[in-house]
């Protein structure tokens, strides 16, 4: 249930919505890059062991 504000509701939702988008985007990019780096390292380690 959304809170009921007496005034300035669009400003409050805009500020928190944009902040959530920015932090969500940052979190997604950082975690995705970590996942890709880990997968690449593991693949290369496997190749090195096999060789």
């Amino acid at each position, binding site marked *: 249930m959304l*809170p009921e504000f*007496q*005034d*300035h509701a669009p*400003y409050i939702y805009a*500020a928190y919505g944009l*902040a959530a988008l920015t932090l969500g985007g940052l979190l997604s990019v*950082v975690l995705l890059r970590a996942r890709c780096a880990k997968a690449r*390292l593991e693949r290369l380690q496997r190749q090195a062991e096999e060789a």
Partner: protein
Amino acid sequence: MIQVFANPHRFMAFSKAAQPWLYGLAGLMIAYSLWQAFYVVAPELYQGDSARILFIHVPAAWLAMATYAGMAVASFVWFIWRHELADTAAKALAPIGAAYTAICLYTGAIWGKPTWGTWWQWDDARMVSVLVLFFMYLGYMAIRAAMDTRQKAARAGAIIAMVGAINVPIIKFSVDIWASLHQPASVVRLDGPTMDPSYLYPLLIGALGHTLLMTALVFTGMRTDVMTRRADALLLRQATT
């Protein structure tokens, strides 16, 4: 202490164990702060409900400055001792600091419209110095990306981070030195906070939550960089044998 965590193997083991706790605690603290902001605290006497924006704007402003200070310290450590993990930390801090500075800028503009009647004021030293900070972050990341070797990127980035650190105290004291639409400091003061406890405690808990989130993100970014270096070294070894 620094020597203990300066070892990449120890850092990887420590950060792997710490990350879930940091993300979990950060989520809980930020959620508590949001719940207070949206449902519990009363509207401010003069600003009404728009004062609720404080619970994201102020932590973002603190972290924008703290992250740059951290980047400058890490760059200094790299510059003096050439420790690769320090450069890794500075590199990981930059996008996080840029994101928090962007949040600070647009939540400030959104808060400014109903409070001061304007989105932006070019002669306000606080606003302009934070915008400069945002461009410092972008410049740091751009110059690193433009360099063809890691050593050159680290050196150029370290110089920008250390020189740009002068902007951090300018931001902090701008409201005391120059005329500004912003009010003087009401939390970090020598004579103690002047903010009402009903606003102060959720703000501090939210700020701590965002600090833990920033730390967790830095750990993840640093781990990514260490893994990328290890993978590059393996690739090089495979290519030469």
